[in-house]
């Protein structure tokens, strides 16, 4: 107990003789990273789509922590510095053959693990941003990516996510193994920062918190500048701007108005030419309104956009080319939604996209806007 009470000194040694190895920066970094990576992994693997924001914030926070660690690796105290645990294959060989003398810091294998984890989380953050830009069409890369490249990034992102799980498992195995071998609880050392005294030749380095703070502020400013520049890039392949009021009124009378990007131009032409027999119903319009709406639909049809929805529904079903809901992709995406849910009176069938997609009218279909409403209480 008094070990912890006495750890205030910076000299490295405490009253009980234990030595301060991990500074506060390293420890805080380590445990916050555990929390954020766990949060990102759990929400990514198990969360429903509308938890995306949680996943994103966990990911941003993990990336920010990595940025801090990279700076701290150059400015932190002795054992925080990368120079105290350089990646070295010779060191790993010596360690494996038992010839490496254990110092205070990371052993050569542990050091490799640190670099591997830092690298994989950086790669996860980058592929995640790319997926967000290309597939979800949000974030700083929205204007700089394509849907196709986003799909590839998504696959890499998922592969790397499994990689992190594997690395963490190895890391835990290593910590347990080394703790046994060194007869010292290494996980606790990462909490208290303290280890038993032992011979160690690492050159002492003082932490440079002011330099670190300035470097981080510089990084933050650069990130802000890049993101605000990227946000202003034009992205004509993502629906934006006002929709045609006439479309919203006339095509919204009987069901959610379906955004033009959800069907190809040929389907819209056909729908607008056959309004007098519209899915078994007369939905005819006077010629002027019909032409206005048709021209707007055709000018904004799926072929003009590169969103997930446009890419998914661009290829209509051969038998029912006028239905978005008949496409194989639409059915696959909605596989998990029970048929009874669509049948609910307050939802009104699959054609009423807006019942569950808060942004259906915009054509964006953002994961964050998906919400299957709670069934209303029966009142008769």
């Amino acid at each position, binding site marked *: 107990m008094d070990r912890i009470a006495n750890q205030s000194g910076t000299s490295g040694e405490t009253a009980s003789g234990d030595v301060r190895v991990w500074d506060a920066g390293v420890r805080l970094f380590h445990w916050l990273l555990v929390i954020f990576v766990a949060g990102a992994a759990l929400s990514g693997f198990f969360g429903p789509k509308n938890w995306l924001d949680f996943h994103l914030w966990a990911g941003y926070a993990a990336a920010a922590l990595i940025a801090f660690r990279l700076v701290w690796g150059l400015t932190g105290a002795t054992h925080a510095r990368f120079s105290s645990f350089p990646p070295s294959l010779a060191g790993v060989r010596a360690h494996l053959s038992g010839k490496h003398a254990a110092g205070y810091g990371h052993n050569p294998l542990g050091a490799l693990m640190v670099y591997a984890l830092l690298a994989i989380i950086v790669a996860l953050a980058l592929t995640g941003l790319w997926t967000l830009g290309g597939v979800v069409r949000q974030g700083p890369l929205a204007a700089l990516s394509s849907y196709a490249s986003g799909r590839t990034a998504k696959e890499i992102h998922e592969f790397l996510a499994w990689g992190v799980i594997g690395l963490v498992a190895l890391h835990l195995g290593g910590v347990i193994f080394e703790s046994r071998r060194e007869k010292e609880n290494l996980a606790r050392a990462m909490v208290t920062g303290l280890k038993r005294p032992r011979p160690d030749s690492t050159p002492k380095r003082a932490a440079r918190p002011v330099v670190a703070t300035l470097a981080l502020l510089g990084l933050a400013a650069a990130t802000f500048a890049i993101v605000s520049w990227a946000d202003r890039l034009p992205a004509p392949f993502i629906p934006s701007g006002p929709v045609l009021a006439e479309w919203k009124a006339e095509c919204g*009378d*009987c*069901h*959610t108005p379906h955004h033009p990007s959800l069907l190809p131009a040929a389907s819209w032409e056909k729908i607008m030419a056959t309004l*007098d027999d519209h*899915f*078994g*119903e*007369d*939905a*005819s*319009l*006077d010629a002027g309104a019909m032409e206005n709406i048709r021209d707007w639909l055709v000018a904004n049809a799926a072929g003009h956009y590169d969103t997930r929805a446009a890419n998914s529904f661009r290829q209509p079903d051969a038998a029912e080319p006028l239905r978005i809901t008949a496409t194989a992709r639409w059915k696959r995406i909605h596989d998990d939604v029970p048929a009874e849910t669509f049948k609910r*009176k307050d*939802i*009104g*069938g699959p*054609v*009423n996209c807006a*019942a569950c997609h808060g942004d259906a009218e915009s054509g964006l279909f953002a994961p964050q806007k998906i919400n299957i409403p709670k069934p209303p209480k029966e009142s008769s």
Partner: protein
Amino acid sequence: MKHARAIAMAIGLAAAAFTGAASAGPGQDAIIAAWADKAKAADPAFSGFDAAAGKAFFFAKHTGGGAETPSCTSCHTDNIKKSGQTRAGKAIDPMAVSVQADRYTDLAKVEKWIGRNCNSVLGRDCTAKEAGDVISWLASQ
């Protein structure tokens, strides 16, 4: 003259209120008058709309239209003071003017929907008389 008409109207309104029969407001009256013009044009012998016939028409099962829409009540339900639902699942406001005051006040809207709905239910246009009968009845509810 002017005064006499106003007094007569006031008496008429009071009588309508007294008997409890809701009467159509001025917006609805203009719409019904427009349909009366059409009915006269189609049939010089036209002598006025018949709300009771309109009610019967609204509830009747028709043939010739879509299989899922044999009646006006298919979407508007048989309680016109309650909300209905389109075949595509969207709620339709009640049809009775007493609960939905802005009903039958926009001629283009009424013409559009009478055109569509008659075709869906009967497979043909409604005659001006049929339409006027129904609107007269709906507007009085």
